[in-house]
């Protein structure tokens, strides 16, 4: 009985759905997609000649195509011109070449079809200690990088891999770009009226500061940074006249800091540097810096204002750092809910780096009241303290990155490789975030010509959220 009713019901349902389909409406209306007005040719390498290094370029690079720039040439987007890279474009840069954006550069990759701006034929070796920095191609500076000139009004890197850049610009390139002859940046942006957007992208390798923002309106969301800087350099180093947000970024093995804000060199007419940083994760930062006392995760100095919350630093050589001389704009700098983990005492002893003025916050993890030795009652800013009671405490419980580490010095954990830094459900990072942090959005919000998504502050510390939001890599 029951069974027959069931069968009848199924039959009726099937009939109904069949009828639905049968009575459905079909349209096939002609739609015209205009061809790209100026598709860039992929037939031959983009080549410079006649003693000039310049290859002017504008228009569109088409999905699925591979373009290449000849050795030593500067691919230049002139002021008022635009280069749009559709999803799935590979741009192979020749040895010693550069991409100079004096106009607009949009690399519009997608999750399914990321773009690549890189060099051809280099094999990554991301095993810890697999290759010494001196011979690692990541630090070799195969090409010069993406150089935003003073007239670059918009640079967007979306779902784009940028790798192996950082060769010294030299006279010819730096003169064309209006940059600096000795620059060794993978990405430079230098227009305080312009917009720099980097979202869901990857930056691999580099020589000096992998990203230098001399000035600009910025939004840097949900990116992954590996092996950045050979023997110095702050991964994202912003200077006077930079305003915006850095959130949900993941850093591993940066030479010095991951994110640094300074108001040094603020131009007349430019605003004061003001950067909001939240939900970023830093692993093994600060070990390739040759000079001592330089930082390993977040750094505010020399007149920079802003805030940093919900960040995670694991085994970084130095903790979150606020500099007292030249002093950051401490009156306009707030921070809290930041997490640190140390394998070793020397790391724990620098959670609040000696000699600087980072103010321990009650929301910090580990708790600033962990023990009588750790930040004692008479602790003054920058003083030496005994961090032994917080060593190996609060294991962040990454999905696949066993802590404490074993087998390699901390400096050798410089790339993601086969590790997975997403959180296990038991992670102490979960639910500790301050969620009412407002991102400082000064760039246009746009699916292509701006920031496509400004992810709000998350409830879990670091860049990966248990609910799947945040960093998508």
């Amino acid at each position, binding site marked *: 009985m029951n069974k027959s009713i069931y069968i009848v019901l199924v039959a009726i349902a099937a009939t109904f759905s069949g009828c639905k389909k049968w009575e459905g409406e079909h349209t096939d209306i002609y739609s015209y997609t205009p061809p790209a007005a100026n598709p860039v040719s992929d037939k031959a390498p983009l080549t410079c000649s006649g003693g000039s290094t310049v290859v002017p370029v504008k228009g569109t690079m088409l999905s699925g195509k591979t373009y290449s720039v000849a050795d030593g040439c500067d691919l230049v987007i002139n002021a008022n011109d635009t280069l749009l890279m559709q999803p799935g474009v590979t741009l192979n840069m020749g040895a010693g070449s550069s991409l100079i954006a004096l106009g607009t550069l949009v690399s519009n990759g997608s999750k399914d079809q990321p773009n690549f701006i890189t060099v051809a034929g280099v094999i990554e070796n991301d095993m810890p200690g697999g290759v010494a920095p001196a011979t690692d191609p990541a630090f070799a500076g195969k090409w010069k990088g993406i150089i935003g000139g003073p007239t670059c009004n918009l640079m967007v890197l979306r779902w784009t891999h940028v790798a192996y850049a950082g060769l010294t610009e030299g*006279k010819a390139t730096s*003169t064309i770009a209006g940059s600096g002859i*000795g620059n060794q940046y993978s990405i430079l942006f230098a227009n305080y009226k312009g917009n720099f957007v980097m979202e869901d992208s990857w930056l691999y390798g580099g020589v000096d500061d992998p990203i230098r923002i*001399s000035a600009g309106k910025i939004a840097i969301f949900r990116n992954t940074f590996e092996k950045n800087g050979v023997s110095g350099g702050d991964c994202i180093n912003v200077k006077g006249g930079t305003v915006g947000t850095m959130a949900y970024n993941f850093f591993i093995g940066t030479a010095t800091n991951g994110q640094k804000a*300074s108001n040094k060199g603020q131009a007349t007419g430019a605003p004061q540097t003001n950067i909001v940083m939240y939900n970023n994760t830093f692993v093994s930062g600060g070990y390739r810096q040759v000079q001592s006392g330089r930082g390993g995760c977040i750094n505010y100095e020399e*007149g920079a204002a802003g805030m940093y919350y919900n960040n995670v630093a694991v085994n970084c050589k130095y903790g979150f750092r606020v500099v007292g001389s030249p002093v950051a*704009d401490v009156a*306009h700098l707030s921070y809290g809910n930041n997490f640190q983990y140390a394998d070793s005492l020397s790391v724990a002893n620098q959670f609040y780096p*000696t000699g600087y003025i980072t103010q321990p916050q009650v929301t910090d993890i580990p708790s600033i009241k962990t023990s009588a030795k750790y930040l004692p009652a008479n602790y003054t800013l920058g003083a030496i303290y005994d961090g032994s009671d917080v060593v190996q405490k609060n294991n962040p419980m990454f999905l696949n990155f066993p802590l404490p580490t074993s087998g390699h010095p901390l400096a050798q954990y410089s790339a993601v490789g086969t590790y997975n830094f997403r959180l296990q459900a038991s992670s102490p990072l979960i639910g500790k975030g301050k969620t009412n942090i407002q991102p400082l959005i000064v760039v246009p919000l746009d699916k292509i010509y701006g920031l496509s998504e400004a992810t709000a502050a998350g409830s879990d510390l670091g860049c990966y959220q248990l609910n799947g939001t945040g960093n998508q890599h």
Partner: protein
Amino acid sequence: MKLHLLIPGKICLTFIFLITLLKTTNAQTIKGKVYDSTSGEPLTGASVQAEQGSFKQYTSVNLDGSYTFRNLKPGKYELKARFIGYKTTEGQEVELKENATLVVNLKMQNASTSLNEVKIKGQTSKESDGSARGIEKNASSIENVLSANTIQLLPDVTVANALQRVSGVTVQRSSSGEGRYAIIRGMDQRYNSTLVNGIKIPSPDPAFRFVPMDVFPSEMLERLEVIKALTPSMEGDAIGGVMNLVMKSAPDRFILSANVSGGFSSLFSSSRPFSAFSASPNKNSPAAMNGNSYAATYSDFNNKALTSDRNLSNPFSSTAGLTIGDRFFKNKLGVIVSASYQNIYRGSNSKELTPNAQPSAIPLPNSPQFSDAYDRTYSTQTERLGIHNKIDYVINDKNRLSLYNLYINQNEFESRLTSDTLGLGLNSTGLSKQITIFNRSTLTKQTIYNSTLHGEHVLSNNLRFNWNSVYSNATRHMPDRTEFSYDANKALNSSGVVTTEIDNNTNLTHHWENNKDQDFAGYGNFVYTPKIANRDVEFSLGGLYRHKNRDADYITYSLTGGKSTLFNGNFSNLPFGFNSTADGIGANNPDLQNNYTVKENDNSEYLQLKFDVVPKLQVIGGVRVENTYMTYATESPLTVTQRSGTISYTDVLPSIHLKYMLTDNQNLRASYFASISRPGFGEIVPYKVSGEYYDQEGNPLLKHITADNYDVRYELFPGGADQILLGSFFKKIHNPIEYFVVRDGGPSSQVIKPQNDEGDATNYGLEALVTKFFGVVGFSVNYTYTHSRITTNKLLYYNDPTLGLQQSFVNETRPLQGQANNVGNASVLFKSAKIGLDMQVAFVFTGERLAQVSPYYNLDFYQHAFNQLDFSFEKTLAKRVSFYGKINNLTNTANKIYLKFPHGSLDAKQQEFLGKQDIAAQTLVQSDYYKTLFLGGFRYKF
């Protein structure tokens, strides 16, 4: 005791008695003064001969120029005066009557001829008009002169240091305290030019036109002239003044003089040794040897300049000079050869705070922020060799030729040891100190060569022509400057004791610089001297053409000693190499952009008129046209805007000089002249060099500077070498070149760039000079007050209550760089021919002056008032031999630089590095100590 006193007393009395006795019995006296015919300067030390048949008597000329023959028999005498470098006067017959005192003034003609001003002296200067005329008096424009005799007794061995004795002149010192550049009336070196015998010489300086004045040994000079107002016949590119080095010229008879001396600096001891090194064998860079495409490796370099470092606890300085001259073929051919060698060891101990590229807006707007605290010792060995030679040939009484050759070679070995508290504040803490140690060895070789063929022709009774054909060459080489640096990371315990030290970040730099500047020039002048309305009128018409070639090249190789290799004190163990192989290729060298060549063709023409409007009022006026045509090229790539260029300009420069002779010994002068100053080559070429505090880059759009100059001066020549000069000047400077900060592709690389300031600069002042002799003692004092002002845009970094930190431009009015409000010299001279002793105490005062302009408001660097006391003497030992000594900087005066910011207001972190402070309202940022330099030796004169 009493006995001892009595005996000399008796002798003294007897002596006085005898003199009195002689005087009463033989009262006939011939006395007078001996002067230079052109300068009117008293010729102390000249000998005068009184001849009557077979009777000959000699006497020498005193400090004030006077000579006296006492107790002569009445009768006819023939008087002759002789002096080195002068033509012996033709015998002058005088008759001495009984009981008479006859006054005979003798004028001697200098054997050299000054070429800068077309002078028609004729053979008429034999007249002894009896009044002493300073060169300042006879000169056609306003100038000051130091004679060879004055220079010889000065405590100085270089022209640069001698210049500071001239009224209105201050010197800018090198890092070892040696005077180098002259600032004339508050106008720094760019505004001044250097002539040798009236001929402009090129500069070995890699960027500028001005000549380092320390390369010239002062003893080669016959006369040093500082000309402060230009006549049309002079080149128009000086606004502050012209330094004319008149070199010794052929004498009228055989002369020989030699000197040798030795000494030391009290700076050096076993605890502060002199650091000496031997030059690198690599005179040229790997790229120069093997081509720009060659990839150099570490094996291409030689570190001898560092590895040969050795300590000398008290190095011995020495100098030697030799002059030989004679005249041949019935005095038609005169030859002089003079050589001077100096090997001087000097140095300094220096402390310096360097400012960050940007100050701090907290606590006060533009609070100074320092990035480095340098502690440096300099050890400088300077070898100078100067040789010059002049040959003159008198073809006949209407035609003369002369050939002049000058060769100067200076090798300077400078060893600089530095420790730097790097990243001051930012990176060092109470418990960890990061110090960078630098050790740099620099050899700088400079040469100047000048060869001038000069002709003078009398074309007719009142038409003369003279010409110069000139080749000059100045070079500067800095072969393989080698520098090694490393970071010493020290961990300290709570009581400040170093517990561990890790030395890493080793860097090695090899650097080459070459600069060559070569001139071919021709000068021609016609002088026409008609009589118009029964007055002597002098027309001069002439011009010059100069073709200049200049090349400069630079290359720097930076090697690192392995990022992970620690330095354990053994330099040779470090695995030095390039970061990437490509860095070793010459064509990739970032210095390549600085290489440049300049060709400049200048020509100028003038018309000058000189006449007396009324008998006492002399007018010199006219106009000069200067045409400059310059092209430059760099090795920058094709895509570099401004990589080459051509710049030409024409200036019309009128001038007028009035001289009113109030009385025989008083003049009143007034003058106006227009002049220019050409930018330095390195300022024009888009070139980038490291500066003291900021890197500098060139600006091809720079315009040349022009100026209107006004002068008045009162002159009194009471007699002898005594004089009183009172003057005043006013200058309006258009398109002054000032340095402004510009951003150069990043916040950390702000550079300063020369730009023409939109506003004019003004400079005015007063000059006073008094010289007075009382017998064997003389006093000379000069004082200059200068006031210059310029208004430029400066950066102000401040904290706005609503906008946060902001930067804006504000105007700041300040003096010109280098200018001191108050400058003075005082010297006391003792000169006794009787006991054969000359002594001089010389004091130089330079008031506070602007040493370096900052791009930031109120952060200019001021050099504190500087006093220097020097002493020198010369004592005759035998007839032709004397002993002399020179002592420099008796009081160990320091060079101190301050910021006008109260040091107490700096943030606490910065306070730790300040060191000892002595002025509450200022911050001492640099001090250099040189200690005292001693030199003593012997002079032989034939």
